[in-house]
């Protein structure tokens, strides 16, 4: 009898506080697995900002420094520049990265900071109770878009990853999802590649992960998975948006 799946080393024993079926939990585990497989957990420093995943430090068993809402990439910049041989990553919600943190994200990419950004796109502000996020798709109902998001009243969903890809300092940007086994494994691969990119000193890497928020979508976890497949991946197509990791550094 061989155990073929177990709790990864860099995940603490603490049970997650996340809602049932929340994508954050899956993504946390994937990070822990990748840190273990790349053997970088002992030199990793993570930077979660305000958001449902602010408590990521209760789960990931690596050094973690909490940032103010939206400022993770700046904090991560400070850490990485001070300790260039450590592995530094930020973990950010879509509100965090694409609203209040727009400038910090774009400019750390533009500077080519050699950090890895994990961008969890669940289409809403989870922690504060389900308000519209910049990524909320049109017609989606949230607590601040009663009747659904309308471009005229609430503006358009934003393609942050595509914008980041334009910056000259960004090296690897991929959009993945966790709404099926296949996609979860794909996300893991992307995370690995992103961390590898940092290990090789290539520059800014980011993985945007479509993630379910059953609570605020008011759907069951399974229906949330289905919604990602049916609706969200239409608005946010899964793909490698930029990849300069090939070839000589």
């Amino acid at each position, binding site marked *: 009898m061989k155990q073929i799946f177990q709790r990864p080393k860099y995940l603490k024993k603490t049970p997650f506080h996340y*809602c049932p079926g929340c994508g954050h939990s899956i993504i946390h585990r994937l990070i822990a697995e990748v840190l273990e497989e790349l053997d970088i957990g002992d030199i990793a420093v993570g930077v979660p900002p305000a958001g449902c995943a602010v408590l990521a430090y209760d789960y990931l068993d690596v050094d973690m420094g909490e940032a103010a809402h939206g400022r993770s990439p700046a904090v991560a910049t400070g850490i990485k520049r001070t300790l260039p041989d450590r592995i530094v990553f930020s973990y950010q919600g879509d509100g965090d990265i694409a609203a209040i943190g727009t400038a910090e994200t774009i400019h750390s990419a533009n500077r080519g900071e050699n950090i890895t950004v994990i961008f969890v796109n669940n289409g809403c502000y989870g922690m504060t109770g389900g308000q519209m996020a910049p990524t909320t798709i049109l017609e989606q109902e949230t607590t601040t878009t009663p009747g659904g998001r309308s471009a005229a009243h609430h503006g358009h969903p934003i393609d942050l990853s595509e914008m980041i890809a334009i910056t000259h300092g960004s090296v690897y940007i991929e959009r993945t999802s966790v709404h099926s086994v296949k996609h979860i494994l794909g996300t893991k691969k992307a995370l690995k590649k992103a961390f590898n990119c940092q290990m090789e000193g290539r520059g800014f890497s980011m993985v945007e992960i479509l993630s379910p928020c059953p609570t605020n979508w008011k759907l069951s976890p399974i229906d949330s998975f289905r919604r990602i497949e049916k609706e969200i991946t239409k608005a946010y197509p899964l793909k490698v948006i930029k990849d300069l990791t090939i070839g000589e550094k």
Partner: protein
Amino acid sequence: MGYVFAVAAMKDGKNVTYLPSYGAEMRGGTANCTVAVSDDEIFSPVASTPDYAVIMNKPSLAKYENMMKSGGMLFINSSIIPQGLFRSDLAAVRIPANDIAREVGSDRVVNMIMLGAFTEKTRLTSLESIISSLQENVKAKSASVMKLNKKALYRGAEYVSRGNE
């Protein structure tokens, strides 16, 4: 339930303060609310030692039993919490709310049954006020829901008035 009661008390001309629990509650923790009713001005919105508590689940019982004012009264959903109390200075009114709800025909009216029982027992307000409060708040919803709610209220009230607890 707390809100409906608070509105009813307000309609009776009382001072009322209703405090829901708020914030990161979404992800675990026991939800609760506090209603203060008085003929005078209400000071603290937090009840440090409540007179009454309506208890819907086990963790809440553990939490609130300790806080109760001596001589206070607990309304316990006995379908879910069969066990007894530790404190002997508290009165307990046990209502098998889930069981009654099943009889009434909907799992959703458990709250209303408890509220009916509470109102009947405490007389802090009247069932009529509760119903008029309800009417305002289910405006949007159908008459059938209202009917169901009323039925549940009366069944709850009936249950305690028959001294069943």
